[in-house]
């Protein structure tokens, strides 16, 4: 390299960041541990994940099978702890499968949003110029469009399936993430230590992933966490409308929809998915709040 290396400068910049980062994360975890709501949410979600994993291997009955010799709308009993549904299927098994689907959709969508949003946001925020202009104009135009409308249309075009539902929800959700990352990249790029890294001849890839990304990690994680409940809710609603997970797969949304139809007869059938969805969304939101308070310095007070 032609440039005179300035190891001290880089050392200084890198070292300072590293120290600040370690402190930031340590502080963050300390704050998170003190947040009882977030901890309770975490415990609940752990249990839920376990249930979903168990459901891969075992459910009390086949969730899709209409059981022979079983009554429909059977109230909770020893054989069927949550009762049976309008077709005589075991509700516990269906609820377990529903947990699986909700979590897959939530986490999967969040992963898509994370990948697309971060990459697009970094590109726009780091390279600026025409690339940024194109991306920004696009986002500004479509930013205001309710995601659910887009999801409905896209899902119909793509066809049924878990993967497609995630893509359909991600179609608008990535924009929030991209805006966030772009803003972060903008402000961090201005910072002195980037200049320091640049002066010592660091490549842009290293700057992007070595400096900008780690420094915006807090807000990005928070944002990604909040995508999960939105995705779960959207999936549940689509399934509720009959536009989501195809039958006989059980989604909390479709169980709720069937339960809703049976509401005057058997309120409990609506109860299970209602409670499960509410608790799960609540847990993700509390966790997101906790993470935000702990790791997002912009929001700290």
């Amino acid at each position, binding site marked *: 390299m032609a440039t005179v290396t300035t190891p001290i400068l880089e050392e200084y910049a890198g070292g300072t960041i590293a120290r*600040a980062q370690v*402190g930031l994360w340590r502080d963050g975890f300390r704050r998170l541990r003190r947040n009882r709501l977030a901890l309770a949410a975490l415990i609940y979600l752990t249990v839920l994940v376990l249930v979903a994993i168990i459901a891969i291997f075992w459910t009390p009955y086949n969730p899709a099978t209409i059981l022979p010799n079983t009554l429909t709308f059977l109230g909770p009993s020893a054989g069927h702890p949550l009762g049976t549904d309008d077709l005589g299927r075991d509700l516990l098994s269906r609820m377990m499968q529903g947990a699986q689907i909700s979590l897959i959709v939530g986490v999967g969508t969040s992963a898509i949003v994370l990948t697309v949003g971060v990459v697009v946001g970094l590109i726009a925020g780091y390279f600026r110029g025409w690339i940024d202009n194109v991306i920004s104009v696009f986002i500004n135009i479509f930013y205001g469009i309710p995601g659910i409308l887009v999801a409905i249309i896209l899902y119909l075009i793509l066809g049924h399936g878990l993967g497609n539902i995630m893509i359909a929800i991600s179609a608008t959700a990535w924009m929030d993430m991209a805006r966030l990352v772009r803003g*972060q990249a903008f402000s961090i790029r201005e910072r002195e230590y980037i200049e320091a890294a640049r002066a010592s001849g660091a490549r842009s890839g290293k700057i992007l992933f070595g400096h900008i990304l780690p420094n915006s990690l*807090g807000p990005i994680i928070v944002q990604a966490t909040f995508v999960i409940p939105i995705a779960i809710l959207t999936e549940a609603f689509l399934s509720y409308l009959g536009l989501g997970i195809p039958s006989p797969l059980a989604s909390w949304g479709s169980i709720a929809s069937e339960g809703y139809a049976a509401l005057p007869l058997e309120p409990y059938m609506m109860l299970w998915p209602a409670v499960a969805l509410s608790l799960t969304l609540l847990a993700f939101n509390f966790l997101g709040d906790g993470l935000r308070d702990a790791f997002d310095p*912009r929001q700290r007070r």
Partner: protein
Amino acid sequence: MTDPILEVRNLSTHFFTDDGEVKAVRGVSFSVAPGETLGIVGESGCGKSVTAMSVLGLVQRPGKVVSGEIMFRGHDLLKLTREELRNIRGRDIAMIFQDPLSSLNPVLRVGYQIDEAMYAHDKIASNAVERRGIDLLKQVRVSDAERRIKDFPHQFSGGMRQRAMIAMGLSNKPDLLIADEPTTALDVTVQAQILELLRDLNEQTGAAIILITHNLGVVAGLCKRVLVMYAGEIVEEGTVEQIFESPQHPYTWSLLRSVPRIDANRGHRLLSIEGLPPDLIDLPQGCKFNPRCPFRVERCFTESPPIEQVAPAQHAACWVTMERAYAEMGAGTITDTSPGAASGVHPAGRSLPPAEVPAAIAEPVSD
């Protein structure tokens, strides 16, 4: 001498933070006579503002006045109900603040904010309020007052905003005006105008003024008497001549030595002397100035010096005092003012020279 209108006795105000109890003001006592001009000086963070805010009961959580008496016209302000205290604020004791831009509400018109202070109390007849608002603005020499009174704060210049603040403070003809660094945010010429204004007002209305500042030049220009604060305590008190000509506390002495450097810098710089003030959560034993004091003796590390009379009307809290430092330690000729330099006292294991300020740690992402 007449009775003081304000007498603060043994005031202590602490902040109960997550990191510990910040003992921002400890055992402060002073008094203000009617019509008097009193200056309070000291480095940034020494508790000047907190003292002033405590007087008006404006200290907010996590802060709390933990002890003391604040006698105003024979009543202890700390014992008043919220409503009684509210009636004194802005009516009998007014306060103006350092940064006139952030201290004015950006979404309300200047005139409204002045008038509001009068409507809140019954001192000015309500039909006279608007007229008086304009008169006040004229009095503080805002030109075209009739029109400007309808402006919003952002339409005012820095100096005009501070004038508006002063007009607001004077609106109810208070007996005492507490001005917390009224000139710090302004440039030198405007500073001089504001000071002149305060001087005139003091002479015309007879209101007593407490002027808080870290600019000794400002004190010299306006005040008759001066309090010097260090780390939450009053370390010296005297007439302005005494403080400037024969300071007795080593801290005051150090402050005065640092003055020229400050004036060279448009008078804006904070007073600063070598080292840092102590951590108010974990205070040093003995005299709080001992980690920085060139004249410290062994006793300074174990016992806190009481504030005692050193000359008529002059008090200082120091075991040595400058008189002795001049006589015995050659204070008049020393060039090395590092801790313990003049007295040669460097106790092992205690009070290492103050560490250098650590390189600023990069604050992670903020917008």
